[in-house]
């Protein structure tokens, strides 16, 4: 029988509920009870393959979300577990990976851009337009003022040292590549990532 994992889960979920009740001696009552057992919630969830965001073992994970990815349905992640097909973790996760759902839905997840003015003791919610316009303006002002085109010996050096960046080591390689392009096109050298810590 050629079964997908989800099909397998569906099948075993239903028969397990019925057969184990019978084994417990419920007899006919078992059928009625089995009918009232809530269907296994993952059977109607959407499964997405992903990689644990923490260490570099890079355990395969399966993310289950409600919603079928229709345009008008917003997916909600309800469960994350180890990917049993993955050749390294083979379905297992550690105490951090097992709790990934809690970091996805952490109450301290940020949901809107915020701005803190000089001397202020609080953040203020702002629009993306405001934040990005202001950041770009500050960056350009600083670059134009402090860009070093040539050093004292007259060699072309084209560097910008007064603004720097730390890059994210849990971001994708594609993000990293785009970040490199942008940062270096500005001439930035104070540029690093978590590889040192």
């Amino acid at each position: 029988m050629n079964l997908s994992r989800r099909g397998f889960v569906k099948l075993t979920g239903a028969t397990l509920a019925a057969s184990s009740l019978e084994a417990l001696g419920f007899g006919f009552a078992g059928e009625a009870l089995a009918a009232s057992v809530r269907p296994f919630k993952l059977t109607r969830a959407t499964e997405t393959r992903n990689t644990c965001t923490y260490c570099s073992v890079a355990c395969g994970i399966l993310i289950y979300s409600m919603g079928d990815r229709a345009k008008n349905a917003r997916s909600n992640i309800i469960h994350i577990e180890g990917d049993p097909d993955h050749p390294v973790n083979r379905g297992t996760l550690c105490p951090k990976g097992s709790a990934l759902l809690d970091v996805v839905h952490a109450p301290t997840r940020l949901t809107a851009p915020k701005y803190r003015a000089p001397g202020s003791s609080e953040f203020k919610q702002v629009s993306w337009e405001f934040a990005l316009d202001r950041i770009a303006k500050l960056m350009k002002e600083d670059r134009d003022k402090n860009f070093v085109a040539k050093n004292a010996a007259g060699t072309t050096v084209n560097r910008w040292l007064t603004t720097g960046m730390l890059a994210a080591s849990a971001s994708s390689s594609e993000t990293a590549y785009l970040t490199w392009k942008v940062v270096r096109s500005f001439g930035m050298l104070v540029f690093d990532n978590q590889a040192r810590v």
Partner: protein
Amino acid sequence: MTNTWQDIKNADVVVVMGGNAAEAHPCGFKWVIEAKIENGAKLVVIDPRFTRTASVADYYAPIRPGTDIAFLLGVIRYLLEKDKIQHDYVRAYTNASLIVKDGFGFEDGLFSGYSEETHSYDKSSWDYELDDQAFAKIDDTWQHPRCVMNLLRQHVARYTPEMVSRICGTPQDKYLHICEMFASTSAPDKAMTSLFALGWTQHSIGSQNIRTMAMVQLLLGNIGVAGGGMNALRGHSNIQGLTDIGLLSNLMPGYLTLPSDKETNFEDYMTTRLFKPVRPNQMSYWQNYKKFFVSFQKSIYGDAATPENNWAYDWLPKLDIPLYDVIKAFEMMNKGEMNGYICQGFNPVQAFPDRGKIRRGLSKLKFLVTMDPLDTETSRFWEDFGPQNPADSANIQTEVFQLPTTCFAEENGSLVNSTRWLQWHWKAAEPPGEAKSDIWIMASIYHRMREMYRKEGGAFPDPILNLTWNYTDPTDPDPEELAKDMNGRARTEIKDASGAVTLKAGQLLDGFAQLRDDGTTESGCWIFSGCYTEKGNQMARRDTSDPREQGIAPNWAWAWPANRRILYNRASADVEGKPWNPKKPLIEWNGNKWVGIDVPDYGPTIKPSDGVGPFIMNAEGLGRLFARDQMVEGPFPEHYEPFESPVPNVLHPKVRSNPAARVFPDDLAAFGLAPEFPYVATTYRLTEHFHFWTKHALINAILQPEEFIEIGEVLAQQKGITQGSWVRVASKRGHVVCKAYVTKRIKPLTVDGKPTHVIGVPIHWGFTGQARKGYGANTLTPSVGDANTQTPEFKAFLVNIESTSAPVA
């Protein structure tokens, strides 16, 4: 990692030193258990603490933090004295036989060429004696007094078992037992794997810690073989990828390096990078540097990179100093030399040494931008959180932008794991609220800058205006398009010598062997070439088949370089091409070509008789026991004490710590001395937490809710500290007040005849998230880095500890 996670199961001996894989990499550590159960492997753990890795070890020995080089040079002395090296491997595959220049020397802790004034070396004497064809001279009988083997023998002679024990505090019998266990893998068909992590890197001599073990592994013939290798267990999910793509001060993608001020033109830049072989017939693969470089410049600047403008060479920023690393950045901030800083998924208030200095630095900026899925301490450094973050907001003039980003579950893309696999992942849901991807944010900043430079002009706009940006949605480039950019493609139709078309214009490349230096190909990261070809996204492959179940799984995802799973695998076979271990071959010579379960790390048809060495990236084709000029503090490792140490350097009291380390004067002034701070401290992770992220996750915050330190029973008793009581731990730079966990797992060591106590400082708590507020281990740690990489010395520093009363709630 040179090898794969699953390949650990093939080891006969597993050594975990400089790491704690059972707690920090639990799902990878399973393969150690597999090796023990299925292969009868012995696990050796050497660590200041009796960790959970140690708890399942066959043999455990304690060691004082920061003395691993002394231990391992002692091991090398033992292997040479007892003649427990794999002779044929060492003779054919390492530089043991090459002759070093007259003039190279080592005396009183310093190698030849040292300048007291600049704290650096003139490395010209750290090289081979060359013959008239500019090849290194060789004596494979090892009679020549200056062949590497004899210089090494002489260098390690001082590391007797007595000396090792005196420096490391490891009892002699335990040390010698471990030497014996290591030595058992000098048999050609036996392998030892070395698993390490930040326990080795976070020292002022971090790179040399790793190098010393690499030398042990070369002498034992354990590099390139199944169950062997040097396996750096990397910490973050894509730290390998970010390193590969060169998001470090001096790097470009694929380990190309940015030019320096000294390279005034393109020709100078190229001459220093096109490594000419120093032995006959060697591949010296970096000879292809120009192909990688030109293809990269074409990828990011397209038609604007031309032969006439040296492929836009001048558009790359040039370095005037070796590195603008994070320690340097915060030094610059503190001196008022920086105005802006962007922290993308990085939380330096928690992650970098001497937190006080980090906060002072950020306070001097004009603007700080944070991009993160979580509410980080860094984004709130200006806010008063009490003793854990005292801040006078009104006097901090920094403008702060806190930008919310997507997390792993909300994006498509690839991550490079510790073993160099590029694994694709898929988006499962939309991000919360208005959070946006880092790609969208970087594109948005870029477009605003480009528009302003277009309209208003400004400082050197050329690279900004000419950056290629051919994405379907320019405001939010698709990760698949970016992956294809990195893989690379032909820019025009490419023909072979016979005139046949080998690549059509625009065709995705199959691998980096197709790259050219004439501008007809492009690739954003040459080592990733092959990851996204005309056959599709190779990183998304999910074939679990594994020939002979040897732990290769060659068609699961894709590994750089060239889908090769075990680096240096040519060294798994003898000079004739027969596997050293016939039971676990990786590749072998079949008379016509190299065949096997892995992609050969070698020319596929190079005959064994051609004498091409297996270490194809090195100009001599050999593994280096003598590093030439590649390390800043010497071609051989040497024991130097941590910058904060309770004892003098008994080998050479005048040169106590790494003589080539960069130490800023204000940081030097903030180092503590043993009379005031008598205890050695070391930092580490707990298995329930990941750095400073999981305190935002409820279950992890419940599992390990509050800051604590670990202290041995003997010292606790001396200081009147009881289980769970409050303590104040102080270094010269700051203090933390937290609870004490009194443990049997840390015992006093006898170092140079005196008892030495170690205090453990887990790193996880701060002032945002769901766990209780903590001061953070980096309040205590010193601001000094490894002399080569500037990785901060978090693993060995000095503190004092005293009992205190509970803080007022």
